């Protein structure tokens, strides 16, 4: 058993072994990477690798193989290191060639004058857990993990099982996670059960790391109130292929060498002595070499870009999983109908709004034509009841369904004080994150009902502009002080507002409640509880799936659409502008996808048109109503 998992428990041994065997040949590095890739490909092997996301750092064995599901938050400067170095062994007085790859620190007695030294280059990424990742995603991922983790300090193979069980909270937690994924309990139920226990698990881990990091170290999470480990990922090859805000699953060697932290402690002393230390400011030091106990180093062996972070779907590209797709498609129609009813209930009986909410949740920027992002579908849900719990409940529902989301209360205070756009901090030489630094396909829920009258200051205006840019062009201009840099993004923005939103949107729909429950809160929680977890899981799969489907349009339909457009213009040119056609095409696309069709049919087109007509009339009615009111 231990031999099987040598590559997990002692990957450096494997690397060193391979290095000793064949470091003279130039491609030993490739071989190492290949070896680990092969190992990970074996059936479910990656499930055996413990994940930094759900195992507290102090339970992990240093220098073992771990995985980390994360987003690239910042990219530091490349660094040069000793790829190969020679070591003087004082005891035997012999020289030994050593490999420095995947390590932070060399062994004692490095011979600096050796001719065998090879300088190599690597890149450091600052990675944070995926911002806004829903709790159910975390739990589900943790539940599928088969890694056995024990506190590394008391690692005794014989007592393996017992210590695992003794670790009560760990056990129950993962047990429950499994339950969730299997759908044994209702989600709300298990949610309720877990709450106190999760508190327990959190408490010790907070003691150990995040608590004193918050005081001394800003881990630079994009969203306020996020938790989890941040990681310095050392990338050894192809670092150009990674982009900022990419979601990755990194497999790498965990390095928490306490020697790394020594730097921080002895900084003051050494800076006096060593001029090379003087080139970095204190802030920079703190950011670039934080104590390894808080920000572990991860030496990347293999990284898998994540198309989505939905644990219920296979992580690889969806096209390859035809059978899986087929099974889901079979019951797609029923799932969709169920979801529609669910949303209709949540939206207090407005089925049209529910329909649009589905379309919004599966929208996705699938392409960009020069500056124009195609496929975005920002929805403005106006007419939300002002009582704040409603929007909160609505968000909770969405959070339960999408893998990552964030609710931004657009209160005056928030708008004036939050940093939305990431900004480069040149003193610390890092990118200070902002709320808008989000991974692809994150649902951003803007709660405009929280906005009150008052004055926006400069920051507020900038934030509103940034939100506007995000919605119109799906890009965020990061502030680099001397210039701005544009980063394209793909964020689903849903604006909940009372009247028409002050932000631009692709589509506005006014909520028309047909039900009027006396106690809104009770009603909403009842609606939520009524959903069986297995069904909720189906919704989750459905939403992620529909978004990723391919979509084409035949020439025939193109013709028909053109004809139709000309006809509509003939009747009333004012009612149908180019903009309207743009929107109609997106609606048609999303509608087809939501029904699992990957091509537009004539029927689908007609339905889309009807939907739009209905929506416009509803909004217009609302306008008239408002016009008459005063």
């Amino acid at each position: 058993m231990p031999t099987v998992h040598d590559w997990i428990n002692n990957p450096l041994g494997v690397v060193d072994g391979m290095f000793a065997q064949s470091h003279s040949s130039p491609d030993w590095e490739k071989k190492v990477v290949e070896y680990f890739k092969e190992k990970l490909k074996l059936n479910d092997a990656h499930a055996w690798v413990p994940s930094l996301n759900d195992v507290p750092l102090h339970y992990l064995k240093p220098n073992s193989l771990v995985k980390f599901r994360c987003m690239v938050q910042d990219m530091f400067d490349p660094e040069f290191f000793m790829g190969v170095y020679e070591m003087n062994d004082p005891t035997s007085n012999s020289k030994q060639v050593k490999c420095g790859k995947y390590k932070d620190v060399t062994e004692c007695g490095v011979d600096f004058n050796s001719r065998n030294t090879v300088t190599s280059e690597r890149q450091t990424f600052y990675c944070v857990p995926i911002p806004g990742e829903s709790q159910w995603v975390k739990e589900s991922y943790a539940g599928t993990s088969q890694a056995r983790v024990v506190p590394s300090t008391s690692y005794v193979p014989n007592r393996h099982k017992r210590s695992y069980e003794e670790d009560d909270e760990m056990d129950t937690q993962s047990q429950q996670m499994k339950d969730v994924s299997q759908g044994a309990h209702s989600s709300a139920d298990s949610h309720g059960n877990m709450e106190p226990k999760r508190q327990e698990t959190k408490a010790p881990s907070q003691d150990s790391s995040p608590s004193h990091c918050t005081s001394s170290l800003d881990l630079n999470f994009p969203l306020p109130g996020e938790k989890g480990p941040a990681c310095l990922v050392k990338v050894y090859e192809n670092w150009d292929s990674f982009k900022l805000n990419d979601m990755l699953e990194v497999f790498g060697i965990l390095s928490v060498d306490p020697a790394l932290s020594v730097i921080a402690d002895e900084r003051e002393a050494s800076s006096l002595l060593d001029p090379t230390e003087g080139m970095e400011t204190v802030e920079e030091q703190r950011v670039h070499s934080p104590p390894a106990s808080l920000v572990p180093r991860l030496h990347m062996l293999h990284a898998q870009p994540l198309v989505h972070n939905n644990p219920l779907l296979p992580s690889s590209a969806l096209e390859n999983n035809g059978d899986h797709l087929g099974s889901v498609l079979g019951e797609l129609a029923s799932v969709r109908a169920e979801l529609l009813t669910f949303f209709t209930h949540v939206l207090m009986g407005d089925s049209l709004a529910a329909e649009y909410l589905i379309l919004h949740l599966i929208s996705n920027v699938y392409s960009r034509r020069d500056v124009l992002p195609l496929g975005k579908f920002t929805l403005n849900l106006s007419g939300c009841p002002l009582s704040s719990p409603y929007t909160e409940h609505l968000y909770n529902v969405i959070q339960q369904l999408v893998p990552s989301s964030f609710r931004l209360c657009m209160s005056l205070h928030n708008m004036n004080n939050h940093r939305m756009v990431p900004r480069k901090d040149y003193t610390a030489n890092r990118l200070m994150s902002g709320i808008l630094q989000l991974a692809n396909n994150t649902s951003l829920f803007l709660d405009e009902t929280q906005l009150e009258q008052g004055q926006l200051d400069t920051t507020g205006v900038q934030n509103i502009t940034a939100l506007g840019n995000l919605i119109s062009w799906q890009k965020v201009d990061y502030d680099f002080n001397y210039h701005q840099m544009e980063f394209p993004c793909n964020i689903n923005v849903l604006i909940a507002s009372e009247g028409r939103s002050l932000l631009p949107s692709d589509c506005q729909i006014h909520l028309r409640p047909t039900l009027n429950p006396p106690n809104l809160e009770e009603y909403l929680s009842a609606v939520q509880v009524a959903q069986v977890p297995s069904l909720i899981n189906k919704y989750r799969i459905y939403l992620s799936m529909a978004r990723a489907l391919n979509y084409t349009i035949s020439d025939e339909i193109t013709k028909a659409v053109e004809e139709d457009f000309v006809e509509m213009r003939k009747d009333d040119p004012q009612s149908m502008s180019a903009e309207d056609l743009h929107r109609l095409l997106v609606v048609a696309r999303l509608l087809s996808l939501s029904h699992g069709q990957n091509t537009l049919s004539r029927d689908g087109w007609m339905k889309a048109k009807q939907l739009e007509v209905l929506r416009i009339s509803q909004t217009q009615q609302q306008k008239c109503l408002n016009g008459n009111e005063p």
Partner: protein
Amino acid sequence: MSSPSSQSRKRDPPTPASEDPLSPPSQRSRAHDTSTELQPMPTSPAMDNSLFSSPMAPRSVLQSEIDASSPLMYGTPSSRVEGTPRSGIRGTPARQRPDLGSVRKAPQVDMHSEPPSGDAAAGSEQGTGAAGQRLVIWGTDVNVGTCKEKFQRFLQHFTDPNSKEDENAGLDLNEPLYMQKLDEISVVGEPVLNVNCSHIQTFDADLYRQLICYPQEVIPTFDMAVNELFFDRFPDSVLEHQIQVRPYSAVKTRNMRALNPEDIDQLITISGMVIRTSQLIPEMQEAFFRCQVCAFNTRVEVDRGRIAEPAVCRNCNTTHSLALVHNRSAFSDKQMIKLQESPEDMPAGQTPHTTVVYAHNDLVDKVQPGDRINITGIYRAAPMRLNPRQSQVKSVYKTHIDAIHFRKTDEKRLHGLDEDGDQKLFTKDRVAMLKELAAKPDVYERLSSALAPSIYEHEDIKKGILLQLFGGTRKDFSQTGRGNFRAEINILLCGDPGTSKSQLLQYVFNLVPRGQYTSGKGSSAVGLTAYVMKDPETRQLVLQTGALVLSDNGICCIDEFDKMSDSTRSVLHEVMEQQTLSIAKAGIICQLNARTSVLAAANPVESQWNPKKTTIENIQLPHTLLSRFDLIFLMLDPQDEAYDRRLAHHLVSLYYQSEEQIEEEHLDMAVLKDYIAFARTTVHPRLNEEASQALIEAYVDMRKIGSGRGMVSAYPRQLESLIRLSEAHAKVRFSSKVETIDVEEAKRLHREALKQSATDPRTGFVDISILTTGMSATARKRKEEVAQALKKLIQTKGKTPAMKYQQLFDDLRGQSEAAITKDMFDEALRALADEDYLTVTGKTVRLL
């Protein structure tokens, strides 16, 4: 002067015997970097070999006069290399070059007191290969004598007849360039010689290679060579210190991202932007100790920031009697500069890299944060020590660049046109491809359709924007008192909301290298121009430039032009005609260049364009501003079936185009970018005879149209517009001459734009005065008539000194057959008041 103990410590020889100095440079440099940089004692191998230590001589520090008179100080082993040192060199102190590496003193004493060490001899034996007498610096393939000779030959003979560098202005290009520079040094007395590496490369490729690979050894050799040459020519010249050679623009210029371990210890040139500079760091080079007991002096060199305080006085053998004397220690200036990759070099989706640069001595404070610079220097790497007391090290190197030469790339932008800074380098293939494209007869149409393909039709608008991208030819009439003649074309788009104006603006903004995008609603006058703010760190007042200045030589896209406040708009007056921006605030008075083309978009006041009104009435912009636009286009919904069909087709295909087609278009955008950049930098068309005739005719024709109806239909401004447009069109064709076809197209486009924007809705005629005076001729005529009618009315009332305003208005309305609005009545009153016929006070009208 130096204590033997410190000297002997330094002379610990790393194992040079094992080195083969003639091995290929790449391999050598690898071994070299580790040997020189990683050893705890950064002693250059060259130092240990006193036979070849000559290049280090200029680095020696001369402090006291006693030392200066000693021949030992000029440790050139001149007897071996050349004749005796010149008195000129002798009289001029050398200055250390910390930029070339850790500071060391040449072991002059050793040269006489000790025989060459065995290692050194071995090294020399290695060096003398087949060539017999060829001695090389240890660790390199550089032979000091040959290298010096070559460089002197280069200085004496290199000419660059095609030089375009402005530093060479005033020099005779057919004479040896650098000899003239030496002359300059003798006159000016600034002992720095900047040498363009590409010159060396064209002159002697091998020397260039050596310079790039072994700058630490070669540059001191150059120093020595140039000093010998200089003092040979100007023996009486007095310089502050010996001349230092500063090579720049190593041809291997690369961006920061391309730096890799191979470049360590090589001479590199990279470009970037300064983001931070540290304060000045006085770095001790040499500590001066004096014995408290016997007053014996000793000097200790700094070894990587540490000074080993001598425990025992060598003279009197007292322990712990030595004290540091600060003001006799030697310090050098040092400054840390953080350099960030320029935004253009960055691949999309990544964050910029930064590099640490150290500036030494007079390069300190040469650059400020925000400057774009090209820096030439030596790339260094040093291992990071985990703990000074442990031998364990972090396996990471700290890298930095020792700056040798700075060159600001944006320096000239404030003063003149920066041609070379912007110039993109095109490969021959690319140029051939572009030229081939230019030769096609329909290149104009091709390019205009490649512009913003996602926006449908509006062919003429796209053509106009295309011409704007190319711009006219810059002319200078300052001699004749007219100042600069605007070459930039300004365009205003107005029209219904939702006609993809903003999208067009976004596209242009993304296409041009120096574009700015602002929205009229969000921008204030200061945001557009420049503002003064106090730097929080330095407490200095700094001028922050706004969008218009930033888009100098580019295009400033202003959306929602109509929503701009009047004060903001007023700054545009100066920018759009004079192309400058004057600022007078907070004690800073200056004029900045803002040679920017303005592409503005405006919505009509009544949300929908009212075809019954003139452009001015629709968008409510002052005519003074409108007349500064060369082309004003209306973007209206044409509302016709064929158009609708094509539009629908366009949109649908936009959404569902296959990947390959999208790829194709992306290629087009890159081609378009290059095409424009190439044309802007290389093509400067001039009018030929026919074209001028055609322009004159066109102008006369335009004037004639109006004169028939008693109004002016063209002003000189329109002629200028025509010229600009013709020139831009010639640029599109890569033609150096503006020909008749260019004028024809300019006329057509201009006419189209006028037809759209300057048509008088009352008469249907094109009336330029709508744009130039804000009122059509017919409107003016009507105003006149109303005033006359009112006057008559008042006269018929006889001698009444005062009348009720409302009554008068009613009377006039009753009398006139045409409907008279209150506005018209007010205007008529005002006109009469101007004639001093009456005055209006409150609600009464008094005759005068």
